[in-house]
C-alpha cells in the first residue's frame, strides 16, 4: 500500500473498499464486562442492584403468581384458618367480582349496552390515535360529536322528555341564530348564502343532538347511581378528553390573543385551575355547583365530577396547546397572512393542524394524567374502579387479609396497562415527529 507519510503530494490510485469492522461480534461475556463490571464502582452498583432485585422480585412473583389463589367462591379460599391459603394474592376475589368492577351495579340485563359503549370508544380511540387511519377528519366528527350522543343515549337510555315547550323554545332560538347570521352578513356586505348555511348548520347540529337525546328508543332508563367500575372510569376519562381538547384549544388561543380582556380571562382561568388540587375542584363541584344553580335545577351526581375533571383537564390541555402554538415559527403565520388568509382560516388551515400535531405527545400525556386522576372521583363518592374495589373489599363474604393487596394490585395493573400503553404511543409519535423534522 502506498503510504502518504511525508509525501508532499499524493494521489490515490485505487479506492479502498468498505471493510467490515474488526471484532464486531463480541461475546456475551465481553458485553457483561463492559456494561456491568467496567470498574470497581460499577461492580458495586451492579451487585447492589442485583441484591435489590433479589429481595423484591422473587417475593413479588411468588405472591402474585406462584402462591396466589386462583379459584374459589368465597373468603374460605383465601383464609388459612378456613382451609385456604393466605400466603399469596387472592385472584379468586377479583374473578368473583369482575362484573361489578366492570359495570358497577348497572342493570344486569342491560349490560350489553355498556359493552357496545366500550366497543364504540375503542373504535373512536383507534381512529383518532392511529396517525395513518383513513379519513381522520370524519374520525374527529365521530369522536367529538356522534360518539358522545350515541353513548349518552345508550348508557342512560335516552328519552330525555324535553316536552313540547322546550322544542318551541328551541325553534325560536334557532330562528334567532339564523337571523343573527343573516344580519351580520348584511351588515358586513358579505355573501348571504354562506352565512345562512353556517347559521343553519349550527342550529341543525344542536337540534339533531337534542333530538337524538330526546327520542325514546325504547331502552329502559338506567340511573347513573347504578353505574360503576371501569365503565365510570373510562367514562370520566372520555368525557374529560372530549370536552377538554376543544375547550383547551379555545383557552390557548384566548391566552395568545391580542385582546387584553380575552387574554386576562384565559390566564386567570388557566392559572386558577392549575393552582389548586383536583380534589378541591371535585369537592367544590360536588357541594357548590348545586348552590350556584336555580333551586329547581339539579345536576346529576355523576355529572358534577365530570364537569370538574373536564374543566381541570381543559386548563392543562390549554397549556399543552399553547406550547404547540408557540413552537410554530412566526414565518408560518406570516406566510399565511401574506397569502391573504384571515384569522380563522389561518388558524384552522395552517396553524392548528401543525400545532396540534406537534403536541400529540403532550396531549396524550395530559390524557394519561387525566386518566390517572379519574381515580379521585372515588373520594367524592362516585363508584369508579377504585371505589368499587374499596366497596368489595369490605364485603364480609370475602373478608380475608390478602383482599386489600389483591384489589389494589388489580387496579394498579389496570391503570398501568392503559397508561403505559398510551405513554409508549406518545413516545412513538414523538420519535416519528422528530424523524419527520430532520428531513
Amino acid at each position, binding site marked *: 500500500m502506498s503510504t502518504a507519510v511525508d509525501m508532499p503530494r499524493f494521489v490515490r490510485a485505487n479506492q479502498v473498499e468498505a471493510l467490515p469492522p474488526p471484532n464486531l461480534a463480541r461475546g456475551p461475556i465481553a458485553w457483561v464486562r463492559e456494561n456491568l463490571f467496567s470498574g470497581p464502582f460499577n461492580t458495586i452498583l451492579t451487585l447492589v442492584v442485583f441484591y435489590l432485585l433479589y429481595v423484591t422480585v422473587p417475593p413479588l412473583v411468588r405472591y402474585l403468581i406462584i402462591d396466589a389463589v386462583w379459584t374459589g367462591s368465597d373468603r374460605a379460599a383465601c383464609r388459612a384458618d378456613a382451609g385456604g391459603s393466605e400466603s399469596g394474592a387472592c385472584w379468586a376475589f377479583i374473578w368473583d367480582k369482575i362484573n361489578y368492577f366492570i359495570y358497577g351495579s348497572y342493570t344486569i340485563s342491560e349490560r350489553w349496552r355498556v359493552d357496545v359503549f366500550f366497543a364504540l370508544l375503542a373504535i373512536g380511540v383507534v381512529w383518532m390515535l392511529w396517525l395513518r387511519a383513513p379519513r381522520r377528519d370524519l374520525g374527529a366528527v365521530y369522536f367529538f360529536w356522534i360518539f358522545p350522543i350515541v353513548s349518552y343515549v345508550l348508557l342512560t337510555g335516552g328519552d330525555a322528555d324535553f316536552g313540547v315547550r322546550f322544542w318551541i323554545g328551541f325553534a325560536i332560538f334557532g330562528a334567532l341564530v339564523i337571523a343573527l347570521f343573516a344580519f351580520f352578513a348584511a351588515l358586513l356586505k358579505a355573501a348571504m348564502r354562506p352565512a345562512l348555511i353556517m347559521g343553519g348548520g349550527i342550529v341543525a347540529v344542536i337540534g339533531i343532538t337534542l333530538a337524538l337525546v330526546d327520542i325514546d328508543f325504547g331502552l329502559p332508563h338506567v340511573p347513573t347511581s347504578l353505574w360503576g367500575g371501569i365503565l365510570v372510569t373510562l367514562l370520566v376519562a372520555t368525557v374529560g378528553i372530549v370536552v377538554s381538547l376543544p375547550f383547551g384549544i379555545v383557552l390557548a388561543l384566548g391566552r395568545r390573543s391580542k385582546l387584553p380582556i380575552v387574554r386576562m380571562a384565559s390566564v386567570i382561568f388557566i392559572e386558577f385551575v392549575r393552582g389548586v388540587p383536583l380534589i378541591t375542584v371535585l369537592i367544590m363541584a360536588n357541594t357548590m355547583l348545586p348552590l350556584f344553580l336555580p333551586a329547581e335545577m339539579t345536576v346529576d351526581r355523576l355529572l358534577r365530577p365530570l364537569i370538574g375533571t373536564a374543566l381541570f383537564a381543559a386548563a392543562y390541555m390549554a397549556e399543552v396547546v399553547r406550547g404547540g402554538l408557540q413552537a410554530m*415559527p412566526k*414565518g*408560518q403565520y*406570516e*406566510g*399565511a*397572512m*401574506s*397569502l*391573504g*388568509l*384571515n384569522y380563522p*382560516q389561518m388558524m384552522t*388551515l*395552517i396553524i392548528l*393542524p*401543525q400545532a396540534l*400535531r406537534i403536541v400529540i405527545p403532550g396531549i396524550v400525556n395530559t390524557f394519561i394524567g387525566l386518566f390517572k386522576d379519574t381515580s379521585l372521583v372515588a373520594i367524592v363518592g362516585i363508584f369508579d374502579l377504585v371505589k368499587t374495589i374499596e366497596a368489595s373489599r369490605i364485603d364480609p363474604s370475602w373478608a380475608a387479609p390478602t383482599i386489600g393487596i389483591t384489589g389494589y394490585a388489580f387496579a394498579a395493573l389496570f391503570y398501568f396497562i392503559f397508561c403505559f400503553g398510551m405513554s409508549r404511543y406518545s413516545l412513538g409519535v414523538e420519535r416519528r415527529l422528530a424523524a*419527520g423534522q430532520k*428531513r
Partner: protein
Amino acid sequence: MIDVHKWYGEFHVLRDINLNVRRGERIVICGPSGSGKSTMIRCINRLEEHQKGRIIVDGTELLNDLKRIDEVRREVGMVFQHFNLFPHLTILENCTLAPIWVKKMPKKEAEEIAMHYLKRVKIPEQANKYPGQLSGGQQQRVAIARSLCMSPKIMLFDEPTSALDPEMVKEVLDTMVGLADEGMTMLCVTHEMGFARQVADRVIFMDYGQIVEMNTPDEFFKNPQHERTRLFLSQILH
C-alpha cells in the same frame, strides 16, 4: 410610500422613507444587516404596521381596515428568506390553498393554475410531495409559485436566496429573472449583486432605517455617491 416612519417600541426602525414604484418596475434593495430592509418590505403588505406616513398600494391606502388589508395582500405576493411553506400540506395543496379559500376558486381550477406555475418554476413533478422532501432551492421555487398562484400585481422578495446552499442559489435566481422578464413589478431585498445588475431598474441602499442612495444599477455599482455605500460595496464584492 410617502414619508413613512416606524418604531419598534422606542426604536426608530424606518425613518422618512419615500419611494414611488411604477408598474412593472424592478427594484433591488440592499444594505447592512439591521438597516430596516425587511421591515420596509413587510410594511408594504402590512405584516408590520407603520406609525407615520402613508403607504399606498395600487391605489389602496393601508389603514387599520381589515377589508383593505385583505385587498392589498391579494395584490401583493411575498417570498420569504425561509420559504415558510406549510409543511403539513403537499406542494400542490400549498399552492391551491389561498386561491381556494381566499379567492373562492373551484378546486379543479386552482389545481390547474397551480400546475401551470409549478411548471413555470420547473418542478411540476414534485406536486404531490411534501415540502420537507424537497431541497432548499426547490422549496424556494415552490414558495414563488405559491405566491404567483394568487396572480399578484407586485411581488416582494426578502432575501430569497440567503438561506440556500450556494449550489441552489442559481436555480432560484433564474426563476426570478424569468419573472422579471415577464414584466412583473418586483421589490427584492438581496445581496446578489449579479442579479441586481442583470434585472434591476433601480438599486436602493439602506442604512439606519433610511434610504441612503438610489440609482440605476450601472451607476450604483460603478459610481456610488455616498461614502457608506462605497464601504458596503467594498465588503460585499471582496
